[in-house]
């Protein structure tokens, strides 16, 4: 091997190493965040909310500066609602310390049966920082319509009375009060955490 070949080979090896480092470590830092949820480009702030919690009236504007995670559900729901709330709790755990800037709010789609006290106990079972809110039927109707949430009571059996079919998605409102993201029911806690964390930067 001549001296020249050696130099060329070392130069090539150097280029390969730099290339690999760049490709795997540097480039990803400049990659845009890949969302798992559906991104929404809102031209105006998310519709205002004024609903009752066990600790008084809450307004969406009370949480300006925080990322609000909004979910519509009800305490009679044994499957999808607990899965979602448990997932949101795990997502906050994944986010870590920054999660203190996240406020999860569950809005009842069963205002006739859910009281603010029931909702408080229900959501706090999953995470003590979660808020549960309700209102009269008319207010809930209005809020659900404004957020594009479908809900409808469907006659059940004698035991269930009725069950509520409802939109099972989770909405993310950024620190400035704009609706930014809709997360599907199917996503994992890690995916939810990664999407919420984007708005905490």
């Amino acid at each position, binding site marked *: 091997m001549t001296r020249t070949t050696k130099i060329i080979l070392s130069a090539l090896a150097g280029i390969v190493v730099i290339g690999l480092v760049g490709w795997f470590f540097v480039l990803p830092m400049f990659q845009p965040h890949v969302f798992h949820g559906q991104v929404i480009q809102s031209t105006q702030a998310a519709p205002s909310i004024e609903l009752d919690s066990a600790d008084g009236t809450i307004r969406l504007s009370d949480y300006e500066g925080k990322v609000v995670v909004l979910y519509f559900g009800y305490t009679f729901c044994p499957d999808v609602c607990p899965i979602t709330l448990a997932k949101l709790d795990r997502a906050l755990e994944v986010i870590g310390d920054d999660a203190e800037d996240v406020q999860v709010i569950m809005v009842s789609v069963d205002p006739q049966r859910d009281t603010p006290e029931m909702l408080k*106990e229900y959501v706090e079972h999953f995470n003590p920082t979660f808020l549960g809110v309700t209102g009269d039927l008319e207010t809930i109707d209005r809020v659900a319509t404004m957020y594009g949430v479908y809900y409808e009571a469907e006659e059940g059996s004698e035991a269930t009375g009725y069950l509520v079919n409802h939109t099972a998605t989770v909405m993310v409102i950024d620190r400035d009060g704009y609706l930014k993201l809709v997360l599907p029911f199917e996503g994992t806690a890690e995916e939810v955490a990664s999407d919420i964390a984007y708005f905490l930067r």
Partner: protein
Amino acid sequence: MLPVKRSALIVLTIVTVLLAASCSSSSGEITIDDPWGRATPEAAPASAFYLTIEGGDTADRLVSAESAACGTIELHETIITDGVMKMQHLPNGIEIPAGGEAALEPGGLHVMCIGKLDDFTVGNTIALTLVFETAESQTVDAEIREG
């Protein structure tokens, strides 16, 4: 040669015994795997049980379930269409294919407990009786977990 033959014979015997044992345990009977119930706060009027049912030799149906811990029990299925969640009551029960399985899992088929009469807190166990169309009923201990 003799020791080799003998050891081969021993191996063959063991294999035969094991095969016979595994066959007898899987034949006919429906078996229930990993029954558990979801921990829900006291304020929640309902909860759900999940389990896997391994089918027996013939197809059967889970037609109902009973528990002293629930006012009423119904078999339900969560169906999500275009983001909308619906809980479908299954009055005809859940099919258990012969040799197959019926998996009752979060977000899908579940045993809905309406009107909780016991503590659905982590660590508690709740007796749940599963009633089949043809097979004899089975009572299992469902462990209460977060989920």
